[in-house]
């Protein structure tokens, strides 16, 4: 049963299995284990970024394609839900229509980009994605009558998913629509992740790995490399869009900064590298560590700064304003000590 769910791709390391299990349980029971708005926000964000990072790894780690347009696909899904909810009114039908249309749009756009540039050298594809992503980001902020411009869009999600919808209390936690929304996010993300895990362990996934290892030989044994690369790109884009839709359902707001900005693209890259390229479990570890650091490093540093306030210089270094510096240091250290990512390292020890 577990083998089928994991598609035969076992973690292959005791420590990794334990880590994954802890993350799974923590996310599954987050509303009860860590009550509070902020921790629930963090948990939902971790779920969504796991899917987003995993879908990016399908391209980067499994197929060897470098793309800078992943936030664009993420944004397409998010704006799909936002626009559908704005124009169709609040309701689950709007969420569904928005998600499907967003994913379709992402796949079609990925197909178009792939058709133009996947035939030629990898660097060309990377540049094209960068250009298209920047163009889309500019378009979204310019076409303010449709997209709300820089301000973004606020919209209503179904009442069942809002805090106003209450239906009791359990284990000292108020049961409301927010809780339902969280479990919608959690279940959808878990399903998408398991689907990606299946794809990378399918015959199709094996061919992707072969292309990453040696596209020349993959072509010579009869695989149409361009077709496979294009399919991987489209699939990756569609899943990223779905992650965006889930994010939009959770946030009830979209804007260029939260879904399209280039800094999110960088975050995704960092999460893939920290977790380990070419393994879906790397996405889980990378996203969890990174989002936790993003959300709690400042708090942690604030405490540390106060604790060392008697000493010279150190409180300055530990001031919460310096959190990006320390995130950078963490990143450099992790790449230096785990060049194959945390998962690669854990599997290497065995």
């Amino acid at each position, binding site marked *: 049963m577990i083998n089928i769910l994991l598609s035969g791709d076992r973690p292959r390391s005791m420590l990794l299995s334990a880590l994954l299990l802890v993350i799974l349980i923590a996310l599954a029971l987050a509303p009860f284990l860590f009550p509070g708005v902020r921790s629930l926000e963090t948990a939902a964000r971790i779920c969504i970024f796991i899917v987003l990072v995993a879908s990016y790894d399908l391209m980067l780690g499994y197929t060897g394609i470098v793309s800078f347009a992943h936030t664009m696909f993420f944004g397409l899904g998010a704006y799909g839900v936002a626009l559908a909810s704005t124009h169709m009114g609040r309701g689950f039908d709007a969420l569904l229509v928005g998600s499907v249309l967003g994913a379709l749009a992402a796949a079609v756009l990925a197909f178009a980009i792939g058709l133009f540039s996947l035939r030629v050298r990898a660097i060309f594809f990377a540049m094209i994605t960068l250009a298209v992503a920047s163009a889309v980001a500019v378009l979204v902020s310019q076409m303010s009558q449709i997209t709300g411009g820089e301000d973004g869009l606020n919209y209503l999600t179904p009442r069942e998913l809002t805090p106003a919808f209450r239906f009791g209390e359990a284990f000292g936690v108020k049961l409301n629509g927010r809780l339902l929304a969280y479990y919608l996010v959690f279940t959808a993300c878990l399903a998408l992740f398991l689907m990606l895990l299946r794809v990378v362990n399918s015959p*199709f996934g094996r061919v992707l790995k072969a292309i990453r290892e040696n596209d020349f030989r993959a072509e010579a044994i009869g695989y149409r490399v361009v077709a496979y690369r294009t399919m991987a790109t489209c699939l990756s884009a569609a899943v990223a869009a779905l992650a965006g839709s889930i994010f939009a359902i959770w946030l009830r707001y979209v804007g260029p900064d939260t879904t399209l900005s280039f800094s999110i693209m960088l975050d995704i890259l960092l999460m893939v590298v920290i977790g380990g390229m070419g393994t879906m479990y790397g996405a889980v570890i990378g996203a969890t560590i990174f989002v936790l650091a993003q959300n709690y490093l400042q708090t942690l540093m604030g405490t540390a700064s106060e604790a060392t306030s008697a000493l010279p210089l150190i409180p300055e270094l530990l001031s919460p304003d310096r959190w990006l510096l320390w995130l950078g240091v963490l990143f450099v250290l992790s790449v230096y000590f785990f060049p194959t990512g945390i998962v690669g390292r854990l599997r290497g020890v065995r």
Partner: protein
Amino acid sequence: MHQPILETDGLTVRFGGHVAVDAVSCAFNPGELTAIVGPNGAGKTTYFNLISGQVAASAGTVTLQGQDITRKSVSQRCRAGLGRAFQLTNLFPGLSVLENVRLVIQGHKTGRVSLFSMAEGDTALTDAAMQVLQRVRLDNLAAQQVSELSHGNQRKLEVAMLVALNPRVFMFDEPTAGMSVDEAPVVLDLIAELKRDHTRTVLLVEHKMDVIRSLADRIIVLHNGALVADGDPAEVIASDVVQEAYMGKELADV
């Protein structure tokens, strides 16, 4: 006389001013093993690249089973029945030995792409791959990552990949190059086995004359990109052209 399975007609490629393969016209008969010889830089590998599609021809045509494949992509040629093993080992280094062979069989076995089935579950595919590995005595290394294999074993795997592909036309580019004396026979036996079948067409680039004598039905000689001799192995090896091409005119005269 039956129709040739593979034919090149005036096949030429120029790299800038240099003519690497110069109007080579040659027909290969089904079931025949043809050795292609010539000194280094004669254009043997380039000729192979033109046939299997890695290099685009400047002029001339390649015909496979009566069908013009000159403008077809590498993968289309492969699916049409043209299989190639490479001189410089060209494997999937990060994957296991078994996975390398499985990928080959998976490619020509299933027409459609399967996204949601489990690759691991296909035991028939694994069994078929293991059988091929047994033939080159690599079955005990099946789980090993290719990048960890010795050079000789990588060469064997290179040959195993082509055997697994089981094309209509086998193209071996110096299959025993860099192999130790005790490793080479496994590969040569395998090629001899293909030959015994009489339905397989084999093109073999090889330097070792004893290998050619024992295996080849026919030899063609390339020199400076041009076809300079074609015929029965014993005659061609003894002929002046080959002596000249390999040792230079002066030496051959001595």
